[in-house]
C-alpha cells in the first residue's frame, strides 16, 4: 500500500501546459527522498477542469492543486509529502473553505452536478497501465459476458438500458447491434468512430487518452454480441496522445490475452487495429469512414444498404462512437436498470460535453441527461467571464444550432434539442455572450462546411458556398431583405438534396440563428449595423469630442495614421484610412472612442 498517491493530469490541455515536466520533477524528487515505496506518482487522463491546468491531485487528502508550475514541485514535496502540510496557496480556490479547511472536490460547483460514467476512470487511473484499469473492475464485464451470457443476453441488456448513440444521431445502440447480429455473414466487423471533427469538441479524445481500455473492452463485448472477430478504431492522426495510448493499450491487452484467441478460455476470438484518419470532417460519417478504412477516398455512399447489412468490406458491420462504447462495460456490470435510472424517459444515462467559448470553466463535463442548459452554463461552467451577458449556446457544432438565452431552462436530451432546432451532436458546447454576432457565428460554421464538403453532391458543394457568400453580403452590409428569404429557401434546398448528414445539416446554424436572431440579421441589412460590434465592414470608430482630452495617445498608436488633431484639442478619425483594428479604443484612457 502507498500512503500517498500523486495524480498528475496527462490530458492534452495540461500536457500542453507542461504537466509532464511536473511529473518528471515529482518522480525525481520522490526518488531522491527515497519515498518510492511510500508515495506513488501517476499520470492520468483529463480531470475536466482544463481551464485551471496543469492539475494534480494528492490522495488520500484529496488536495486538488491547480495551475501548478514546475517550480512548485519542491514546495509540494517538502511541505505536503514530507511534512503532511497541504500547500493551501496552490489549491483550486473553490476547494478551500472559509475556515481554511479543504472541501471535497465533489462538493465544488464544477463537480457537484456532474455524474461520471463514461469519464469514470479519467483522472483516476494511469491509462498506460492495464493493471490499473483491471484494479478498477476492468475487463470484468468482458469476462462476465463471455462466461455467463449469450450474445442475445448482451443485446437485451443494452437494449433495456436505453443507451443511444453518443456520436450525434442518437440511434438506439441495442437495435443497431441486433440488426448486425441478425445479418448473415462469414465475417463481421466492429468499428469505433473516433474521428471527432466538430470544432471545439474533445470528449472522445479525452476518453481515449484517459481510459482507452474501456473502449477496447466494449468493442470486444460488441463483437461477441454480433459475432465478429475483428475491430477497427478510426481515429484522427491529429490526436497523437490518444493514438499512442490506444496503441499501448491494445498491446497490453494482447499480452494479457484479453485480445486475441480464446479469450477467458472460451472459443471467442477478437483482435483490434487502429486506422488513422487524415482529419476530414466527412470521414466521421459512417459510410465515408468505412470507405476510408478500406483505403479509398472518404466519400459517403447512399444507404440502404445499411452498414449492419453491408458495411466494411461489404460485410455486416457496426459503428459506434467512443463515448457510446465507454458506457457499455458499466452497463453490463451494473445492469440495465442502473443505467436507465439516470436521465430522461427517452434519453437515458449521461452525456459528456466539451465546454468552450465564453465561459469561465472551459473543460470537460459529464451530466445526467435532462440537466438544464442553465445548470451547465451557470452552476458548472461558472457563467460568462467579465460579467458579460449570456446570449446563446451552440450544440451539435456545424450540424447543430443555437440555443438562445430564453430557452436556457430546457432540459438537455436528444428530443428536446431537436425540438428547439439544434441537436445533441457529439457534445461540443460553445457559449456565446453579448459580444458575439450571431450572423458571424453562422458564417464561421458555414465556412467550415464549405471547406469540409466532399464535393459529391452539387447541393452541398455549391449550395453551401452560395449560402456562405450570402452571409458575407449580410456581414458586409450589402444584402437586401429579399436575400434573407432567398437564404432560407436555399437552406431547405440543401437539406433536401444532399446525400449525407453533412449536407443535410449544414444549413442548421443559419436556420437557427435566422429563427432566433432575425432582428440581428435585419439590423445588418436595414440599418447597416452590427449590434454586437463584430462585423468590421459595418463598424465605424469615432471620437466623442466632449470626452477627448487631446492627449494624442490614440494618434501615436494608430498603425495607419488615421487619427489627426493637435495637442489638447479633440482628435478625429479619418474613416477612409481606418482599418478598424480597435487599438485606439483600447488605448484611450478617457473612454472617448466608441464603435458605432
Amino acid at each position: 500500500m502507498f500512503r500517498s498517491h500523486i495524480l498528475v493530469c496527462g490530458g492534452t490541455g495540461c500536457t500542453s501546459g507542461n504537466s509532464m515536466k511536473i511529473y518528471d520533477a515529482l518522480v525525481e524528487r520522490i526518488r531522491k527522498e527515497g519515498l518510492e515505496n511510500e508515495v506513488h506518482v501517476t499520470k492520468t487522463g483529463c480531470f475536466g477542469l482544463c481551464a485551471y491546468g496543469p492539475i494534480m491531485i494528492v490522495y488520500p487528502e484529496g488536495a486538488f492543486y491547480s495551475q501548478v508550475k514546475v517550480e512548485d514541485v519542491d514546495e509540494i514535496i517538502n511541505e505536503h509529502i514530507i511534512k503532511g502540510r497541504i500547500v493551501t496557496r496552490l489549491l483550486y480556490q473553490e476547494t478551500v473553505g472559509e475556515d481554511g479547511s479543504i472541501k471535497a472536490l465533489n462538493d465544488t460547483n464544477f463537480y457537484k452536478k456532474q455524474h461520471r460514467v463514461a469519464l469514470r476512470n479519467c483522472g483516476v487511473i494511469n491509462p498506460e497501465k492495464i493493471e490499473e484499469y483491471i484494479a478498477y473492475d476492468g475487463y470484468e464485464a468482458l469476462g462476465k459476458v463471455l462466461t455467463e451470457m449469450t450474445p442475445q443476453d448482451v443485446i437485451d441488456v443494452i437494449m433495456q438500458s436505453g443507451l443511444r448513440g453518443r456520436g450525434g444521431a442518437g440511434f438506439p445502440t441495442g437495435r443497431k447491434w441486433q440488426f448486425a447480429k441478425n445479418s448473415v455473414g462469414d465475417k463481421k466487423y466492429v468499428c469505433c468512430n473516433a474521428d471527432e471533427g466538430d470544432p471545439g469538441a474533445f470528449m472522445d479524445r479525452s476518453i481515449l487518452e484517459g481510459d482507452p481500455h474501456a473502449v477496447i473492452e466494449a468493442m470486444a463485448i460488441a463483437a461477441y454480441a454480433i459475432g465478429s472477430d475483428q475491430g477497427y478504431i478510426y481515429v484522427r492522426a491529429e490526436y497523437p496522445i490518444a493514438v499512442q495510448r490506444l496503441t499501448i493499450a491494445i498491446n497490453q491487452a494482447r499480452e494479457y490475452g484479453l485480445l486475441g484467441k480464446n479469450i477467458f478460455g472460451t472459443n471467442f476470438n477478437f483482435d483490434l487495429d487502429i486506422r488513422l484518419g487524415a482529419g476530414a470532417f466527412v470521414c466521421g460519417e459512417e459510410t465515408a469512414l468505412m470507405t476510408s478504412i478500406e483505403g479509398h477516398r472518404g466519400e459517403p455512399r447512399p444507404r440502404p444498404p445499411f452498414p449492419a447489412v453491408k458495411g466494411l468490406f461489404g460485410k455486416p458491420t457496426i459503428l459506434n462512437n467512443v463515448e457510446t462504447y465507454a458506457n457499455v462495460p458499466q452497463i453490463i456490470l451494473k445492469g440495465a436498470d442502473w443505467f436507465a435510472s439516470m436521465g430522461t424517459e427517452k434519453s437515458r444515462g449521461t452525456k459528456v460535453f466539451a465546454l468552450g467559448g465564453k465561459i469561465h470553466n472551459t473543460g470537460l463535463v459529464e451530466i445526467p441527461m435532462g440537466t438544464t442548459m442553465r445548470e451547465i452554463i451557470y452552476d458548472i461552467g461558472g457563467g460568462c467571464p467579465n460579467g458579460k451577458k449570456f446570449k446563446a449556446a451552440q450544440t451539435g457544432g456545424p450540424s447543430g444550432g443555437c440555443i438562445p438565452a430564453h430557452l436556457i431552462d430546457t432540459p438537455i436530451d436528444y428530443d428536446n434539442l431537436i425540438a428547439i432546432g439544434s441537436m445533441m451532436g457529439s457534445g461540443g458546447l460553445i457559449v456565446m455572450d453579448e459580444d458575439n454576432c450571431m450572423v458571424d457565428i453562422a458564417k464561421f460554421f458555414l465556412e467550415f462546411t464549405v471547406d469540409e464538403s466532399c464535393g459529391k453532391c452539387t447541393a452541398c458543394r455549391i449550395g453551401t458556398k452560395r449560402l456562405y457568400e450570402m452571409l458575407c453580403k449580410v456581414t458586409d452590409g450589402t444584402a437586401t431583405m429579399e436575400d434573407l428569404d432567398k437564404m432560407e429557401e436555399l437552406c431547405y434546398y440543401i437539406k433536401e438534396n444532399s446525400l449525407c448528414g453533412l449536407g443535410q445539416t449544414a444549413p442548421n446554424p443559419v436556420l437557427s440563428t435566422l429563427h432566433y436572431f432575425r432582428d440581428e440579421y435585419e439590423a445588418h441589412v436595414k440599418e447597416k449595423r452590427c449590434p454586437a460590434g463584430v462585423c468590421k465592414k459595418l463598424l465605424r470608430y469615432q471620437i466623442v469630442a466632449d470626452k477627448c482630452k487631446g492627449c494624442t495617445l490614440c494618434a501615436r498608436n494608430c498603425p495607419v495614421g488615421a487619427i489627426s488633431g493637435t495637442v489638447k484639442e479633440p482628435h478625429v478619425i479619418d474613416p477612409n484610412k481606418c482599418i478598424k483594428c480597435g487599438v485606439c479604443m483600447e488605448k484611450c484612457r478617457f473612454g472617448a472612442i466608441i464603435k458605432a
Partner: protein
Amino acid sequence: MKSLEELRALREKMKSQTDNRSVAGADETVIKVGMATCGIAAGARPVLEALLDEADKRKLHNVSISQTGCIGMCRLEPIVEVFKGGQKYTYIHMTPEKARKVMNDHVVNGNPCKEYLIGEN
C-alpha cells in the same frame, strides 16, 4: 487471461497499488502518522512503513493510511492516530512492533491497544 478467476486474482493484487487513491469513505478506518520534523526525528518513518506493510499483507482495502503534520505533542512522538467507529484513538511513543500490534488488535479485531493510548502511561 484464461479465466475470470485469473482476472480477479490480478485485480486483488493490484488493489494494494491503488488503495488510498481516494478520500476515505465514512466506513473506512483512517490512520494518520505524525510526520513533521519532530515525528520523523523520533522514528515515525519505520512506524509508517510497518503500518503500510501490515495493510498489504492482510489485504486491508478498508483503511486509509497517511501522514499528517505536527500533532502538537512533540515529546510523545511518534504518534499514530486511528479514527474508527466515529472515535479517535491517539497512540503515542510508537514503534514498528507496536504499530503491527495496533493493526492486528485494533484495526482488524476491534480491540484498542489500551496500553499505548495517550493518558494510559
